[in-house]
């Protein structure tokens, strides 16, 4: 069962926090498998996570119900964002956006 405090969940990911956030952003576009997630993140964020980091984050996200695997015949199992995951991502992005706004406002004054 997924936890209710979804925003706190992402913060509890430790070193997997950044990969987890970027995976959620990548899956917001639609279901993807591991390799496609890596390529997508590399294209929009300019970072390429190693397979250990990627699947460490995927395992955490899946265990918390933020993403789910889709059953396919293919060896490459795609993942999709769950409703809980979408809610957590929205909350996280809103939080980041407010921080960015404050930062930009303060920089403009400086």
């Amino acid at each position, binding site marked *: 069962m997924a936890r209710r405090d979804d925003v706190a969940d992402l913060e509890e990911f430790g070193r997997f926090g950044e990969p987890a956030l970027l995976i959620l952003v990548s899956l917001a576009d639609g279901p993807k498998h591991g*390799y496609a997630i890596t390529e997508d993140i590399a294209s929009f964020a300019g970072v390429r996570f*190693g*397979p*250990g980091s990627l699947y460490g984050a995927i395992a955490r996200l899946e265990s918390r119900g933020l993403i789910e695997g889709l059953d396919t015949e293919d060896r490459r*199992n795609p993942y999709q964002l769950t409703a809980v995951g979408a809610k957590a991502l929205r909350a996280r992005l809103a939080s980041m956006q407010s921080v960015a706004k404050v930062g930009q406002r303060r920089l403009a004054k400086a």
Partner: protein
Amino acid sequence: MTWLIRLYPSAWRRRYGRELAELLAAQPASFRTAVDLVAGAVDAWLNPQSSTAVTAANAKGAGAMVPKMLKLRSAGYGANVATADDIKKVWLPGAASCLLFFGFYWVLIWLPFDKTRFQFLAIPYLVLPFVGALAAYWSRRMKGSVLERVLSALFPVFAFVALFAVRIVYGLFFEGVPYTLPHFLAGFSVTLVFIVVGGLLLVLGAWPFCRPHLRQQLP
């Protein structure tokens, strides 16, 4: 490089191993990838609760709910644990602590001290409780049983005995100089002291980390 996937817990491999192998096949092998995989394997062992989907998927049924709530099912618990996992809970922390110990000893013998002084000879023995504690702690994090933690802690002793055996074979067949009984007895006495004193110090260090799991304390 796919062989590095074998470092992960078996339940984890059953869930993600195939995908990970697929991903590895799609990208060039590099040292950075290898380090990332090893770090991921260590994380999977140390934080099995972070991937409860692994065991939840394998143990569908109401019976899994209570232990899951108690966080007792993990990559290191339950029916999904293979014999290879049990063995890994011994050799992986044991080998890691052993490497640290012999690495430390290697550095020590390079230092400009009088190697024959008792104080110098005692230093490796003084660090043994910490080595034992480290191995038992890692084994406990990997959900090893009390016996597995003690065996992990005793790894330097096993390594010392193995080194002595190698020394005998080398002395008898490869050294060129005759390997006589006095040679054997000198090595044997040092090994015996290490087995008894070193073993005791290692177990002493491991002792605080040898309390049974909550699961084992439950009726």
